[in-house]
């Protein structure tokens, strides 16, 4: 058992935790967090695969690593968009707040 395999297995367990969070969360925020935990686990498996592919003088295969960098940024965008939707949804559910706009203007 090498450290790399260990991180791969940890990634698998993290993905499992993420799935649990996604399925069992009580609200939207919990689901978004679960999704991010799941993503972190999958990225970590990518990391183990990249590390195993060390060759040609590189410590790790750069292609999966570059994909993960792109993935982290895209996952962040998706998270932020989902959060914005959640906040807006909450505002709509809370009903119209006529003084909201006025208070904003005063700022």
């Amino acid at each position, binding site marked *: 058992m090498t450290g790399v395999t260990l991180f791969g297995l940890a990634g698998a367990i993290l993905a499992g935790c993420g799935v649990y969070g996604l399925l069992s969360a009580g609200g939207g925020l919990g689901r978004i967090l679960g999704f991010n935990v799941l993503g972190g686990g999958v990225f970590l498996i990518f990391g183990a695969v990249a590390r195993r592919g060390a060759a040609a003088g590189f410590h790790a295969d750069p292609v999966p690593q570059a994909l993960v960098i792109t993935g982290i940024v895209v996952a962040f965008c998706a998270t932020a968009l989902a959060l914005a939707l959640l906040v807006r949804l909450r505002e709509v*559910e*809370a*009903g119209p707040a006529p*003084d*909201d706009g006025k*208070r904003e203007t005063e700022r």
Partner: protein
Amino acid sequence: MARRMADLLFAAGTVLLLVTAAGLAALWRAGGRDADRMLAIQLLGSAGIAVLLLLAPAMGDAAILDAAVLLALLAALAACAYRASIGASAGAARPARGAPPELRRP
């Protein structure tokens, strides 16, 4: 010799990580306020900086120091965001943004 030194630095990093994580876990389960948990995360971040500093000579990669600099630079970001998420300024009781509670419930 160098190999043994690296091993000892790894051991130091392991101890540091486990000690702070044990403290975090104890505080987390103690059931205090969220501010205490924020402090525990802050301690974990500080230990993370130290671990990165230890890893740089242990793994023989000076670029790890850049990650330590980044972590130290962003160490205060979460605490500031936590502060901003509370809302009101310390001086006066300001109502939170949005409607009062009785309007919020449909």
